[in-house]
């Protein structure tokens, strides 16, 4: 949405156009030169020169992400693969975007009792605040799949269902690469099976 802003009167200097164009070019050129000097000096071994800016060639080259980044949700599973979630609806209650939709059903084991039969998250509405993860008393909903590149052609396509949420695996973060090393595409290039399924 365009936010209307009050227009500033241009000064004479700005109105003659060319001086401002050259000022802009000068800024770009300054960044280019400064970064080139920094990269060259560091290459020559001057380690106390500040780092130069880096451009990632996304999507071929993937930027490392922090392990605590809130990414697409998943629902943890019990040893038998059933959802660990007990449909307490805490996440649904706390969600500021009201984008979690839970319908509860009976679990055959009276010691578990309650299980979601529908659990939808509308990612089109989700603001990735992570409150749902905070609120969960069962540690069942997590935002650690490492998936952040998702899009859909329809609003319905943005809805994650119970099956999808259960199928998600946690991102197997190996280490958090620093910018000095070559970026490690690991977590997103391919996901590995979870080592031990979560159990209650």
């Amino acid at each position, binding site marked *: 949405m365009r936010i209307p802003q009050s227009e500033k009167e241009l000064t004479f200097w700005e109105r003659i156009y060319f001086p401002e164009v050259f000022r802009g070019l000068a800024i770009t050129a300054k960044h280019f030169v400064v970064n080139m000097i920094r990269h060259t000096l560091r290459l020559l071994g001057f380690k106390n020169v500040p780092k130069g800016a880096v451009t990632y060639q996304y999507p071929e080259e993937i930027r490392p992400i922090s392990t605590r980044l809130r990414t697409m949700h998943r629902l943890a599973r019990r040893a038998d693969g059933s959802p660990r979630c*007990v*449909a307490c*609806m805490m996440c649904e*209650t706390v969600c500021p975007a009201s984008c979690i939709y839970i319908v*509860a*059903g*009976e679990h055959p084991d*009276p010691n578990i009792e309650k299980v979601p039969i529908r659990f939808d998250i509308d990612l089109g509405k989700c603001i990735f605040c992570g409150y749902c993860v905070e609120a969960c*008393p*069962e540690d069942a909903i997590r935002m650690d799949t490492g998936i952040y590149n998702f899009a859909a052609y329809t609003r319905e396509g943005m809805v994650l269902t119970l099956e999808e949420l259960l199928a998600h695996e946690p991102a197997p973060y190996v280490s958090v690469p620093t910018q000095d090393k070559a970026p490690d595409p690991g977590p997103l290039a391919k996901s590995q099976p979870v080592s031990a399924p979560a159990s209650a």
Partner: protein
Amino acid sequence: MPTLKIDGKEVWVEPGTNVLEAAKKLGIEIPHYCYHPALKVAGSCRMCLVEIEGMPKLQISCHTKAADGMVVWTNTEKVRKARQAVLEFLLVDHPLDCPVCDQAGECYLQIYYMEHGLYKSRLRENKIKKEKAKPIGKHIILDQERCILCSRCVRFTREVTKTFELGIFNRGNRSVVDLYPGISELQNRYQGNLADICPVGALTDRNFRFQTRVWYLQQAKSICPGCSRGCNIEVDYNISREYKAGGRRIPRIRPRHNPKVNGYWMCDDGRYGYKYVDALDRILLPRRLDEGEPVELSWPAAYTMAADLLSEATKEGADKVGVLLSAKMTNEELFAARKLFSSLGVSRIGFRVEPKEPGYEDDLLIKADKNPNTKGAELLELGLGAGKSDVSALLDAAEAGEVDTVVIFNEDLSKSSEAERAEAVLPKLGRVIYVGTNWNATAAKADLVLPMATFVEQEGTFTNFEGRVQRFWKAVEPLGESRTGLSILAGLATALGLEPVSENAEEVFAELAEQVPAFFRGSATRNLVSTGNWLRARLGRR
């Protein structure tokens, strides 16, 4: 009159009142579990301890009678510590199932823990395992682990229903609430109340189980339309999360305390009988039959058609029209309908429908008359003279050819004692208009069907069997295109060019109270206060 001092404030009470009730009079809530004002005192939970000057030990306020000159302290350090300790004991074997427990949000363990507990758990033992999720009746499910053994449920089955199904078995921390041996399930017709009086989530409602969370619900004060007792109820509705409870907007209803009508209770037929309001067979659009084929109509077209049918019929003579109102309609609707049809010249306005079998009745709450407003209709002097059934009188007239147009309001004649005769006679009539909430055999054959709102979708008053006029409030909007009875009558009046009818129940009630001597003169609906109990129709003083 004993006068005592509680927390420094003086209060006088009736002799025999206990200290807990005396404090309530001052607005001081003493936490308690086993005490229930409608049941005998058990004194088993020890949560209601208070300090009374001159007594060496703390006393349970539910079982201590208020005495003159007593000085009571409900919130001293000693009392608070004792409460905390009691709570810690009650929770020793408690499973803390809150995430899966339907009581969460209105559980007195949670409430009092947050208000008076807040201790750190010191328990190092394993908790005792007991039976969980055990259905003990058609409507009730028991979780023995969550039970705090307050015995409210046991006393309820002993003192209120007198059916003696529940008892407490075993001893010490292995005690459990259960059905007596030889009883396979609860047999009383009031078992829904067990879920209400259980202060924790040990007894919960199977109808409400896992449907939603209590904090998603909003409340509207209402009156149960299940029988002529008119129990005061609270309609719990959910409109913000429409995917809950299988799309039902009303996941549950609960009794509302009214000492003059229903006390704290309501029966199961009323409690679970409201489901037609969200049923799939609700009539959602006006509909007419064209050569036996149903055609859906818009409201303006429906009003025009109804007005045409009625004016055609009255042209042949107003006594050719028979109207069957319903004792399920509000006083306001009945009054407005009476006004509208009498200004058309119609005199055959009945409402009595005799059921196939007489209804069940007991001496607690349930009445045999399953209509909420029979008394109201009688006070409005509706009905076709003597006899139990206005349906029979109308069918007699129809068979004799005196009536060829009928307007039926929300009564399924196929459920009445005259089912066979109605089935034979109705199709032979010239015109049948049906105004109602749900599809049924009578509606299916009507020439014109108008969808009407249910009791949760409108406001109004019912007059119960003792002549008590009780107000109820609207909870949710009418489903689909349905409209309230008043709104339908208003539309008809306009289409017929008659004196306008107000759609506002309060205005109609004010007019009704002015014009019908049986209702208090000049008392408008707004005088009926929220306990539901207000205004007694002036019985026998016309």
